[in-house]
């Protein structure tokens, strides 16, 4: 008997949701700052050392940036912002991973050098 009212309620809810959703879309500003920061971060991370020591991480950063640019073109500002923020932090991860690898190698070399020197000195004193 009250199916009519039910139908109305459902339609109202749907309309309200749609309106809110549309409003959400329109109210997201173009992520200008986030994009600029992301571009700079990915550029800075794109060194030979980083691509050598953290290739996957660097790749992740640059492809997210590329997707962000695409989202911008598609007027999906929310997606673009999210991807840009992630691209920036991904670039930082890549840089620091590369640095960690380099530091570890340097530490290993310095320990090897110290050991070699110790052995040399041993030989000299034994003689």
């Amino acid at each position, binding site marked *: *008997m*009250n*199916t009519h*009212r*039910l139908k109305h*309620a*459902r339609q109202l*809810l749907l309309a*309200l*949701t749609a309106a809110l959703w549309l409003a959400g879309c329109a109210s997201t500003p173009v992520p200008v700052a986030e994009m600029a920061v992301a571009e700079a971060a990915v550029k800075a991370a794109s060194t030979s050392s980083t691509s050598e020591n953290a290739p996957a991480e660097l790749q992740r950063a640059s492809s997210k940036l590329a997707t962000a640019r695409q989202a911008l073109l598609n007027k999906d500002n*929310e997606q673009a912002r*999210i991807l840009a*923020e*992630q691209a920036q*932090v*991904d670039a*930082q*991860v890549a840089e*620091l*991973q590369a*640095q*960690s690898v380099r*530091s*570890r190698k*340097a*530490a290993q070399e*310095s*320990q090897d*050098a*110290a050991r070699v*020197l*110790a052995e040399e*000195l041993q030989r*000299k*004193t034994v003689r």
Partner: protein
Amino acid sequence: MKNRLLILAVVAAGLAACSTVPDRNSALEQARSRVNAASADTQLTLLAPEELKRASESLRVADQAWRAGDSTRQVEHLAYLAQQRLTIAQHTASSRASQAITAGAAAERDGMRLTQRGQEADLAKQQLAAAEAAAQRDKASGVAQAERRDARVSELEMQLKALNAKKTERGMVLTLGDVLFDSGQARLLAEGSRNMLKLADFFRRNPRSAASIEGHTDSVGGAEANLALSGQRAQAVMAALVGLGVPADHLNIKALGEAMPVADNGTPAGRQINRRVEIVFAPQADEVSQR
């Protein structure tokens, strides 16, 4: 009644987004547990405290967004940022630990080198002392050694004198006279050959001996021709000696032509004396005697 319940259900579903008790977000939970675990990591808290703090802050922001009922996408995004900042903290701590190791190893090497230099200085002192002691001993035995050397030299001289060699400032000189050669030729006569035998025997008995074979002529004939002739005679002597087993590298040839007369070229006798081959025995290497 049923319709009212249905409406309520729909409204409730519609209001779900604004609920005060949000559904658990697995991405947030993952981030939360990772950051909590990291706080217990002493190396991390010690070496990258600022970076760890930043990660914790990011987690708090994610958590707030979740409580406020932000979209799942936003909450997951913020949780992702928190996780990445934690990874940054971990890499930073690792780099700093490695740098400390490098610095430590460098300091260790410096320390070892200092110790080594100290040891080298001690060693050098020891070696110097040992060398000085050895020098003292040598001095004592040196006198005995010199006496033995002199005895040996005298014996050599005696042997050479037996060959009619004469002692000069150049060394012992054996002179092979003109009569031992065919006139104007470089061929050794029998008499000359006998001398060669004696000489070869001398070299055999004194294997370290070395000699210079020097050819001379008188002043008759051209200087160039004489130079050539003197060279040929010296070569003949050398060939004879080598043929008798004297090592060639102990012998040296000099063609001196008419340049060094020992007698007056004005008389026939004098000229004959000048036509000669001299075999000069240089003092041996181990002889320290001043000649």
